[in-house]
């Protein structure tokens, strides 16, 4: 049976309560800590493994063109898709494992995602591909580049592509959306590391501010350090020598 986030939250809450029984650790607070740390560990884990365990596939993402512009990253008259989820920002956009589309000339529909795979590029490299017939963007050799949450598609300007399939390495859902009773999408072998790091984070959080140092208005200085005579400025006439006039 897969582990669920509720158990991880309850485990850490119970451990924290051992030493801080009057402190309040809400499920959301501990859940947020867990997701924060889990995303980091998960991202490191994914980058080290060639595995499809955490691949999320969206099979029918619509291809559009901007007609109205609401922010500078929206470039008109270029085909684009919007990322359906937040992804890890790996080097060379490796959070996008693949983008592909079905070429209508091939009617064998069973291997849809393998038909035309988009190559990754960037806005400053596009021109370079244009001058070589073997690399020039075309329906057979399409490219994509990422700008913020938009992925622009090159080479399919003159063909009708309504939708693409995309495989992503996406981050964990936000604490507002996550279902804590669903299987927790996290490598089981790293749970002990997660547990330890969340406890460290919680321990740090509990020290800021230090609850033992409430300002009561009392002086913490030893009585011997408190001056009992009036402190006089060095500029006071009584401290001036005659030569200073």
């Amino acid at each position: 049976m897969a582990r669920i986030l509720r158990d991880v939250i309850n485990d850490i809450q119970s451990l924290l309560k051992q030493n801080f029984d009057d402190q309040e650790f809400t499920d959301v607070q501990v859940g947020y800590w867990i997701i924060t740390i889990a995303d980091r560990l998960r991202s490191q884990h994914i980058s080290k493994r060639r595995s499809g365990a955490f691949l999320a596939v969206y099979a029918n993402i619509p291809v559009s063109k901007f007609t109205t512009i609401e922010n500078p990253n929206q470039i008109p008259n270029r085909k684009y898709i919007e990322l359906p989820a937040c992804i890890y920002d790996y080097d060379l956009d490796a959070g996008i494992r693949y983008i592909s589309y079905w070429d209508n000339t091939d009617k064998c529909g069973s291997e849809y995602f393998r038909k035309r795979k988009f190559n990754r590029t960037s806005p400053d490299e596009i021109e370079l591909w244009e001058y070589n017939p073997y690399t020039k963007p075309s329906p057979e050799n399409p490219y994509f580049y990422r700008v913020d949450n938009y992925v622009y598609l090159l080479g399919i300007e003159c063909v009708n592509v309504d939708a693409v399939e995309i495989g992503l390495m996406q981050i964990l859902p936000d604490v507002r959306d996550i279902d804590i009773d669903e299987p927790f999408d996290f490598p089981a072998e790293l749970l002990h590391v997660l547990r330890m790091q969340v406890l460290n984070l919680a321990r740090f959080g509990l020290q800021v501010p230090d609850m033992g140092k409430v300002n009561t208005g009392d002086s913490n200085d030893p009585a011997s350090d408190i001056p009992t005579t009036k402190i006089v400025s060095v500029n006071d006439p009584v401290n001036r020598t005659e030569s200073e006039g």
Partner: protein
Amino acid sequence: MIQTQTIVDRTLSLLDAEGSDRYLFDQDFKPAINSAVEWLVAVFNSAFAQNKLSEEDLRELVKVKIFQANNFSRVKFDPADVGESLWTVLSINTEVTVFPDNDPPPLPGDGTESVYHPGYTYVDSKESAKRLSIQEWDENSDNIFMAGNNVMTTKLKKYAYLNFSDYSSTSYGETGEIEIRPDVSAQFVGIRYLKYPNEVTVVTDTIEFPESITDLLVQKTANYISFKQGDGTNLYSVTDNDVQRLITFMVA
């Protein structure tokens, strides 16, 4: 439960007035016992505020009743409806299962009136609401990490309640309501509360406190009676010391 007769008999013994008509129930014991009960209520209030007393010590007075929140997610506790006065709220439970198992009925009228359901028994609840101060209530509504926020709608949501306030106006007739967040409009709400102990009227009445505090009640009753004996009596100082010691044991 403590029998009033037990308190009377033991106090008579302390006063060395067994078989005497010097102390009468209506004139001496009844007001002294009722004063002692009220004094204990005040002491327990203070102990509750400092989390120094468990409500199990007052199990005879712990009640759980089912209400249905109005359209503003508020619940009114009307002693006339419930048949007893409220001492203090122990917990507010939401997402309640009731017996007989039923969904909440539609609210009457325009939905501004919460409903007390004497026909339903509290069975179970998934959530308990945290009590917030007025300042916390005003500041927490957008903070997902605090109880009583309106942002979290998933299983991670945490309910909170604000104690009784009078929201009445010319267009809203309800007075003295508890408010609960996130919204529980028209849903069942379980209120676990302490009933205010009944006043003793006749010597056959019972006092709704656990038998474990019988001695404290006897000492305090004798202490009140000793007031009439004038200043500096031996009974006053002895019972006062005993009362202080017992209270220290209970709530320290």
